[in-house]
């Protein structure tokens, strides 16, 4: 049993795995993730891929908004930049997937730096609106630069190929998604053990104090935008390779809002929270859909309520979480874990 919280070295204070128990459960999780695709059907595999891709995007946004405190309403557009880069590179230049992936990340990061560069001067509300403009402008470019992006028809691409294996179904793609999710989550988790990650948190908590302590605001805010957009780009690249098509309607403002909602519901500034949020926000709409699908036999026009009902529930979730559980699902998870720590000798 694990009791108390005493640490004698900095190394143990910063350890990712506190003790053997957490290592054990992580191992169990990995085994489950490896077994998962062999036991479930196509639908769940499809959902798992979607969730994985969303997790990468959500982790990216959480680094920027949750950890570095810079609000972005343009995350979907950055994902879109990554997606379009991947689609253009693979359809026009026949580039292999393994080259497309980092390149689309870098392209998004470049856009992130361009948009985030002025963030040294813009704060809070003003930054929020600047990123909103960036979102709308990029959306416009996706639709109207037809020679490059294919306009509203978009671009179709062939399935990606890695080391000679063609990832043409959800089962094969699953392993790619899971690998990338694990890499991104590990990278993000470790980022906060470094100088850069701690600088982000200092900037979020009080930017003026951070500057007084010798943290260059311009440099670290730019880093935050770059890292966050890089992950957005990876997520976008995976997204188009998974769906094998890219159109502007995949990256609307509403999608940016959905990502923000994810990290709020999951828990801001928590990597685990991004994962919870991404899972939650992907599963709940599907749940609503299937419940309404059951109701169709009783109320024949139930399906016409699908979209508005999803909107209402989406809004309610945001409001309820912010009012009653501002630290999100990650906090609920922590409470549950703490409850079982000393169970059954809880006081």
């Amino acid at each position: 049993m694990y009791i108390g919280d005493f640490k004698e070295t900095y190394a143990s204070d910063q350890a990712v795995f506190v003790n053997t128990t957490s290592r054990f459960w992580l191992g169990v999780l990995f085994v489950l993730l490896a077994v998962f695709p062999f036991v479930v059907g196509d639908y769940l595999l499809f959902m798992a891929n979607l969730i994985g891709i969303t997790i990468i995007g959500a982790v990216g946004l959480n680094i920027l908004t949750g950890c570095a405190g810079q609000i972005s309403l343009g995350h979907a557009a950055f994902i879109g930049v990554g997606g379009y880069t991947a689609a253009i590179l693979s359809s026009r230049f026949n580039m292999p997937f393994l080259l497309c992936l980092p390149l689309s990340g870098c392209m998004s990061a470049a856009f992130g730096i361009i948009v985030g560069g002025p963030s040294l001067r813009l704060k809070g509300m003003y930054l929020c609106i600047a990123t909103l403009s960036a979102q709308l402008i990029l959306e416009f470019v996706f639709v109207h630069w037809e020679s490059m992006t294919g306009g509203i028809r978009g671009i179709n691409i062939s399935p990606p190929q890695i080391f000679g294996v063609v990832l043409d179904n959800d089962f094969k793609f699953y392993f790619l998604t899971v690998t990338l999710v694990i890499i991104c989550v590990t990278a993000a988790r470790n980022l906060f053990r470094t100088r850069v990650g701690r600088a982000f948190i200092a900037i979020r908590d009080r930017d003026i104090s951070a500057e007084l302590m010798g943290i260059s605001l311009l440099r670290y805010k730019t880093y935050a935008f770059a890292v966050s957009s890089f992950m957005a780009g990876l997520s976008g690249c995976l997204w188009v390779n998974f769906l094998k098509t890219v159109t502007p309607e995949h990256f609307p403002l509403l999608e940016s809002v959905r990502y923000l909602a994810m990290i709020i519901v999951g828990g801001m500034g928590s990597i685990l929270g991004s994962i919870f949020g991404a899972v939650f926000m992907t599963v709940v709409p599907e749940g609503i859909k299937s419940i309404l699908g059951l109701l169709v036999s009783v109320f024949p026009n139930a399906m016409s309520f699908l979209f508005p009902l999803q909107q209402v529930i989406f809004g309610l979730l945001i409001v309820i979480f912010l009012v009653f559980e501002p630290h999100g699902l990650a906090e609920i998870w922590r409470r549950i874990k703490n409850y079982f720590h000393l169970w059954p000798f809880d006081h």
Partner: protein
Amino acid sequence: MDIFLQLISSGFLVGGIYALIALGFVLIYKATNIINFATGEFMMIGAYIFYSLMVYLELSPFVGFPLVIVCAALLGALVERLILRHMLGQPNISIIMVTIGLSSILLGLAEMIWGSSFRSFPPLFPRKPIILGEIVLRSNLFYGFVMAMVVVAVFLIVFKYAKVGVAMRATANDQVAAFSMGINVKTMFTISWAFGAIAASLGGIIIGNIGGVQPTLGHIGLKIFPIVILGGLDSIIGAVIGGFIVGIVENLAGGYLDPYFYGGVKDLAPFIVLLFILFIKPYGLFGTKEIERL
């Protein structure tokens, strides 16, 4: 030249209507420091309520307008009391997200109640277009502009002279001082939300009368941001001026550039202008620079 004058003048009229909607945003921001992303949805709900009163209950507009004002005030006050009151002292992003969530709820509810189809108002104003020299103005736009200006004027007068207006300004200026002078600051928050909702929903009725109502009417609410950034977030006169600028910029861009880009520039232009302004002046054109102390 004709086209230029035509574009400028109709842009000016649209701008007046935008000014009213932006007023709905600034009233709330000034008093409570809350960035209301749901302003557009308040517009949409106001327009729908007015539509229902006119079409389903067949009331005259003179009964309809006061009823909409009452409903909007109730909606605004209710939202403040039930949701935003709990958010006092929370970080900026949480408050922004709450209003985004609220807009999503209102949008979904409106679509559940009224459906997603497009509806147009029964005619409110005489149909005959207004002709000034060589310029032809659509009658709905012209009378809508006149109405918006009247409402803005009423708000400005209330703000300047009425007791509640003075109290609201005092609250916006210094909450602690206002509180110690016997002003109930919390009530002022509620009243500001009610006023903001009234301004927005009247703007919604005018816009709905020009272009018809559908749930996506509220997307016009996004245009508030270029307007208020241009005018300064906490300046009421700034909102009015910003409204005019955005209306004109938008119409000029739409008239001259849309043919080259197959549409869409009209809605985008204000945001491009906005980005340029933010690059040069990070607090907008007339906004107060925030001085931060540790």
